[in-house]
């Protein structure tokens, strides 16, 4: 095969890259592979991009990365690069505007300092030469957005900006041609520069949060092994599965489609789909849902629904539908612009008309009208919101709270009601033994050996706990798992078993489901009790949220018995046994009653509810669906980030309001000057810079808002 033709490019997401050594290991590990031309890790977006020839397949490269000790997930390389393009284009425009502003300002200062006659004209011409291409290039983001808004007969912040900048430039050009004393090139260009700073910061914030989240994206169940009629097996992608096919699902594998069990007996972990902590027994004739995890034994399943007909796909559709209401949200800057733009244009028009009537002549009147437009141009307004939000998001990020975009902060500040999921949100989603285990060291070794052999969540919790205590496993032989009952084996000739208390003849205590019994030989069974531990600061957090007027409550898909103790411990009302659609309905009812719901959840079953909420948060341990539906993702074992984020969002809102007040107050001072015709380009530039700096300085007060 020809090398020149067969140049290929692939990208993988590497969630595990954490340091320089990882970068070196991956790059140096990949480059020697025949067919690999170049491999480069992007640490910021946690990706590796590989140029290779068709000698090696993408799948082989993924395995090679796996052998280096990293999980690689392939990405559809199309979407993210398009997003990046926006911020790169803004950065380019920003650089051009910065260059223009500096040089035009340099010339303007000379004019203000007293240059006159031919020197002044020369400087004006030079300014025009620099400013006009700059405006044409750097103003494009604003012109485009303004045009798009006008075409839909709407107005946004970009309409007054575009009109102001274009008018100022055109009029200054005219002044330059006739040799007039004042031009506004410096005003127009530095206005663009300041506004582009705000625009770029806003965009960069979104990019960064998105990188953080997409790095964690994974496919839930990529595919399944299919039993062919001839008795052979073949691996098929989830999208290619069809009803009627028979798939083999090994222990530890997720079901890629809905189906009915034909053969085998096993237990299934549904926590991803329903939020239920305890696995269910599944035997021939039972139905398995896509996305659930087969725990103990291989199953043969006849597919009943695949692709976008599975219950999993149904949840996705529900999420999309629920998320649509959110796209109608109008950001605060645009709401301000709806009031501001008409007022500014009316004012400029009135000054023009007024001076015409007063007999000033159209040239003088137009000059004054443009001065009004420039003075009122929302320079500080354009910075007021993004700067405050970027500073707040930066502070939150240092606390391990990722905000996906600025509007999330705005909506978070408006929330007046919070609904939390239980499993994995209020609790850690991890089972822990209650108290110390009443076992001898020998027994612990046997228990560990048994627990390790099973994928059941209780066994895994037990194994993790014992491993944490440095227990060594005993040499247990003849391990056999009985689905739904437990696991048994032989240790030095005696039977040892770990499982359901009733199976081992133990007296089950209260909350019968979260315990296992252990017998060794003929001894009396020992009872081991578990609980899904509530996050340590959950109670504090709930109290703080209540104190902030957020009226916290729990919405859970788990059983009543499991939800009740948690709700009691936290002192909150709780609804249990909710299907994903029930959660959405509960939230819709609240929103209909004019409550703005902050939904906090992690599971796939919370996805639609997260999308339906006015704003939503998810822990970083959440499923991908949870993370992509949430506006804010928080890291760590604590729940307090929820309260911290709400507090920071409210502080941000008040700073944004102060910034608006500053910007409008400055307009109230400067506009009379402009209307009375006393504003020279020098005054305009000074006023614009001062107000921008004031707004910036005020926003910096949010630096510590996430304390």
């Amino acid at each position, binding site marked *: 095969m020809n090398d020149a033709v067969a140049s290929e490019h692939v990208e993988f997401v590497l969630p595990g890259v954490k*340091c*320089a*050594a990882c*970068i*070196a290991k991956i*790059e*140096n590990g990949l*480059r020697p592979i025949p067919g690999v031309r*170049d491999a*480069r*890790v*992007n*640490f*910021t*977006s946690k990706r590796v991009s590989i140029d290779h020839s068709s000698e090696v397949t993408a799948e082989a490269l993924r395995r090679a990365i796996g052998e280096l000790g990293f999980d690689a997930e392939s990405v559809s390389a199309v979407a993210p690069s398009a997003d*990046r393009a926006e911020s*790169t284009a803004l*950065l*380019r425009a920003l*650089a*051009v505007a910065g*260059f223009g502003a*500096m*040089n035009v300002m*340099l010339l303007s200062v000379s004019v203000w300092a007293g240059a006159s006659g031919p*020197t002044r004209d020369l400087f004006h011409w*030079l300014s025009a030469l*620099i400013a006009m291409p700059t405006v044409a290039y750097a103003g494009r983001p604003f012109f485009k957005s303004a045009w798009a808004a006008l075409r839909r007969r709407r107005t946004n912040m970009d309409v007054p900006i575009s009109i102001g900048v274009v008018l100022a430039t055109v009029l200054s050009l005219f002044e330059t041609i006739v040799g007039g004393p004042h031009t506004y090139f410096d005003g127009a260009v530095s206005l663009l520069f300041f506004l582009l700073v705000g625009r770029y910061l806003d965009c960069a914030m979104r990019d960064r949060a998105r990188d953080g989240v997409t790095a964690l994206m994974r496919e839930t169940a990529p595919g399944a092994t299919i039993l062919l009629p001839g008795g052979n097996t073949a691996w098929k992608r989830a999208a290619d599965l069809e009803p009627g096919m028979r798939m083999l699902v090994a222990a530890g594998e997720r079901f890629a489609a809905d189906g009915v069990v034909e053969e085998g007996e096993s237990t299934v972990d549904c926590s991803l789909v329903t939020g239920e902590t305890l696995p269910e027994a599944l035997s021939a004739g039972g139905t398995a849902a896509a996305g659930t995890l087969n725990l103990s034994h291989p199953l043969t399943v006849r597919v009943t629904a695949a692709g976008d007909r599975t219950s999993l796909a149904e949840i996705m559709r529900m999420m999309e539908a629920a998320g649509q209401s959110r796209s109608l949200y109008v950001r605060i800057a645009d709401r301000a612009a709806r009031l501001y733009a008409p007022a500014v244009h009316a004012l400029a028009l009135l000054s023009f008309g007024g001076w015409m009537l007063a007999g000033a002549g159209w040239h003088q009147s137009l000059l004054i009208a443009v001065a009004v437009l420039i003075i009122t141009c929302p320079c500080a307004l354009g910075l007021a919101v993004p700067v405050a939000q970027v500073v707040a998001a930066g502070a939150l990020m240092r606390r391990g709270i990722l905000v996906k975009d600025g509007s999330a902060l705005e909506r978070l500040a408006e929330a007046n009601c919070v609904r939390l999921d239980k499993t994995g949100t209020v609790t850690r989603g991890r089972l822990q033994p209650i108290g110390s285990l009443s076992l001898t060291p020998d027994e612990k070794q046997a228990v560990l050996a048994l627990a390790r052999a099973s994928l059941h969540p209780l066994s895994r919790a037990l194994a993790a706990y014992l491993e944490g205590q440095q227990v060594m496993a005993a040499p247990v032989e003849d391990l056999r798992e009985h689905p739904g009952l437990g696991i048994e084996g032989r240790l030095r000739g005696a039977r040892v078993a770990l499982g359901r208390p009733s199976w081992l003849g133990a007296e089950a205590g209260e909350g019968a489901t979260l315990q296992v019994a252990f017998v060794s030989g003929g001894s009396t069974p020992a009872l081991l009790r578990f609980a899904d531990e509530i996050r340590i600061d959950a109670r504090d957090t709930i109290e703080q949220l209540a104190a902030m007027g957020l009226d916290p409550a729990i919405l859970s898909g788990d059983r009543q018995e499991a939800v009740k103790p948690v709700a009691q411990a936290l002192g909150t009302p709780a609804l249990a046994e909710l299907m994903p659609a029930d959660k959405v309905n509960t939230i819709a009812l609240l929103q209909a009653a004019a409550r703005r719901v902050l939904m906090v959840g992690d599971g796939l079953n919370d996805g639609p509810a997260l999308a339906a909420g006015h704003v939503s948060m998810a822990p970083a341990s959440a499923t991908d669906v949870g993370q992509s539906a949430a506006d804010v993702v928080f890291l760590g074992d604590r729940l307090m980030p929820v309260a911290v984020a709400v507090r920071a969002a409210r502080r941000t809102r008040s700073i944004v309001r102060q910034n608006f007040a500053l910007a409008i107050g400055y307009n109230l001072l400067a506009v009379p000057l402009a209307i009375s015709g006393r504003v020279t380009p020098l005054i305009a530039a000074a006023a614009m810079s001062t107000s921008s700096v004031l707004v910036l300085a005020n926003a910096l007060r949010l630096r510590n808002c996430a304390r």
Partner: protein
Amino acid sequence: MSGLALLIPVALLLGLSGLAAFLWALSRGQYEDLDGAAVRILIDDEGEA
């Protein structure tokens, strides 16, 4: 006045070359991985790349 005729083009040229350098670096992807640039200095044996 004659000094201006020299200094202004020089100032503009310097500014433009700075701008060109930035745009070149941007288009070559040098701003895509700022966090990576910060840690890469710690790699001992990075090859010719």
